[in-house]
């Protein structure tokens, strides 16, 4: 009997020993192409840097697919340790307390250091709860910026527009020079969500949705938002703006081919654009309306954050915490920043990139972070709205109808208001 006990003790301790030696954690994300490769490289760097944890990243397709498959996995108890959730899906996961462990708690519980002040101002709120506690760990953050075809601006003899009024003044010259003056990808993000941030306009009741889900309603059929789209439609009719549907790439392609003077895109597109653009280009802040009082505030953080899913062992959570700390270290942030074009999320990383002289070499890379560091306003902080991916779909549908002449901007935003509010009410019921 004694013998058996000894043997089993030894066996047990061996198993425990090997488990202690290395804890496996998983990371589901929604990135492909070059960005997906960089995720693999960073995971490898983490695995090489220590022996206790082994991180395995896995691409689940798009952002939406990463979120859906994590939800399905959570319901069957097979969730990954870490999931990447995009801006529009943030409310879904943050309104399900119990699905995630707030990143800040996770890191502090594991005995690692954490300070909110280390992060640049623009990224502190979007993935945090009402007390400012980080629920998600900001990861790939981007800002919508204005890319410009250098040749087009030289040929037309015009300067980069600061405001949309400036754009209206120079657009005919760009057109005369033989270019489509502007295209923009993902109007939902650019011309609604960030229109609200850049011009300091309220987007939804209940403090843009941050204060709760009950009774939250959109504020989109207001004068200014409708004006933005009246202008876009008028520009499209005059050949000053090219609308190529809801697809990201369809609006980017003519810019890459050098046919378009300026493209409103993501700072995260910089990595890819350096390879795909067939002409020299530069970038500047996304324009705002000089006519709107208090406009010119920062854009809110786009992109995605990492969430630590609940229901995992302490060892695994410790590894996840360790990885989050690793990820926010200046060296890793700079590596990520320089390889993808996403902005560094900590002050220290930004300083390091500056010291290295990265922005002297590539000034475009600094535009996004500078725009996120502009002075904030009451309404520049973004939004937290449930079923938001569906609300975006409604907007995309109505925008197509605006530009094909089936509806007017006012009528379109009335529809968005009505269907969006119905979705928000539905979401409030699901989490009630």
């Amino acid at each position, binding site marked *: 009997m004694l013998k058996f006990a000894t043997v089993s003790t030894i066996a047990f301790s061996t198993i425990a020993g090997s488990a202690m030696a290395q804890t496996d954690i998983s990371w589901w994300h929604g990135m492909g192409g070059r960005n997906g490769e960089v995720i693999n490289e960073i995971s490898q760097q983490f695995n090489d840097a220590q022996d206790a944890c082994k991180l395995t990243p896995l691409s689940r397709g*798009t952002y*939406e*697919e990463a*979120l*859906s498959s994590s*939800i399905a996995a*959570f*319901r069957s108890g097979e969730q990954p340790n870490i999931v990447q959730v995009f801006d529009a899906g943030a409310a*879904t*996961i943050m*309104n*399900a307390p*119990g*699905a995630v462990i707030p990143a800040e708690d996770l890191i502090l519980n594991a005995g690692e250091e954490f300070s909110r002040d280390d992060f640049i101002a623009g990224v502190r709120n979007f993935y945090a709860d009402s007390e400012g506690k980080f629920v998600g760990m900001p990861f790939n953050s981007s800002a919508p910026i204005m890319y410009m075809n250098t040749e087009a601006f030289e040929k037309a003899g015009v300067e980069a527009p600061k405001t949309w009024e400036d754009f209206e003044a120079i657009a005919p010259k760009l057109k005369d020079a033989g270019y489509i003056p502007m295209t923009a990808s993902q109007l939902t993000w650019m011309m609604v969500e960030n229109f609200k941030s850049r011009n300091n306009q309220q987007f939804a009741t209940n403090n843009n949705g941050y204060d709760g889900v009950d009774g939250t309603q959109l504020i989109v059929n207001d004068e200014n938002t409708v004006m933005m789209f009246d202008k876009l439609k008028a520009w499209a009719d005059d050949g000053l703006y090219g*609308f*190529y*549907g*809801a*697809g990201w*790439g*369809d609006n980017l*392609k*003519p810019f890459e*081919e050098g046919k378009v003077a300026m493209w409103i895109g993501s700072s995260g597109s910089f990595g890819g654009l350096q390879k795909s653009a067939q002409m020299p280009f530069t970038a500047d802040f996304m324009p705002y309306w000089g006519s709107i009082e208090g406009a010119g505030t920062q854009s809110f953080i786009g992109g995605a954050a990492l969430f630590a899913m609940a229901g995992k062992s302490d060892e695994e959570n410790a590894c996840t915490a360790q990885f989050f700390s690793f990820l926010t270290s200046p060296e890793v942030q700079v590596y990520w920043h320089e390889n993808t074009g996403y902005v560094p999320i900590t002050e220290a990383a930004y300083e390091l990139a500056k010291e290295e002289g990265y922005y002297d070499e590539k000034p475009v890379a600094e535009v996004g972070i500078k725009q996120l560091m502009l002075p904030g306003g009451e309404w520049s902080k973004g939004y937290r709205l449930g*079923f938001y*991916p*569906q609300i975006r*779909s409604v907007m*995309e*549908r*109505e*925008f*197509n*109808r605006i*530009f*094909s002449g*089936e509806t007017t901007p006012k009528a379109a935003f009335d529809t968005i208001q009505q*269907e969006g509010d119905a979705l928000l009410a*539905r979401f409030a*019921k*699901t*989490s*009630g």
Partner: protein
Amino acid sequence: MARLRGFWEGSSRNPAKRVQFDRPLTPWLFVLPQLLIVAIFFYWPSVQAVTSSFYLEDPFGFGSTFVGMDNYTDAISSREYRRIAGFTAFFAVMVTALSLSIGLLLAVKADKVIRGASAYKTALIAVYAIAPPVSGLIGMMFFDMHMGPFTEMAAWFGYEMKVGINYNDTAFALILVAVWKQIPYNFIFFLSGLQSVPVSVREAALIDARSGWRRFKDIVLPLLAPTAFFLLIINITYSLFDTFAIIDVMVKDKPANNPMTLVYKVYLDGFKGNDIGGSSAQSVILMVVVAALTVAQFRFLERRVHYG
């Protein structure tokens, strides 16, 4: 075809084909694996869908509220849902009618080809080997707004084709690709159906009627009816369900104002919107409609089909 008929009429009309088992449980043992598969992959998920269609659920499954028929009334009262349902019906009719008639036409013509027949057939059948997402991708490139050959062709006629922005243009592109993908399938079945028409019957017909169209209408077509009936059901199912991948690829994951089918809407609300209750209700509606349609076809259409 005999299998379909046996299934519907019951085996009692064919006593000669009955197999007798000594023990009553033995036949059940043989069908058990199939029954298990049907139960696990069809009945169980169906029951789940019906159940969750009566609830509003938070995506992570922490809580669900019983809402009765709300999800159904929400779906049916939505203007957008009805618009999609309308397009789905139009799409199914167009795709089925076009791919059946073109498949039949090609099969009749191929049946007459003597020299180079196999090369001709191979060329027609080859398309069937293309996976739906790939055919969607091909369609996407053909109709690309910036460089698609079809877009350029339309431009010769002074038409600015905008697949992805213009609702009708996208509908046209979707139907074209879906039909193109399905023609070979219909072609194979019609061709083999034509080749099983006995030579003696054709020769007899040749004596009775000089007109090729009359011979086709009175002799060949009735003999093809079982094949056509089978293909009708398969094509409707195809246009309703299997075109998903084509649509997904061609609208590039962002449907916006583009036409889509009800199945795509179920996916959009359930998997992208994480609205499980609403999406379940839609899939139950779809299930009921398709079941009713299939039963109706068997009841009313199959009576006219003669199985030789």
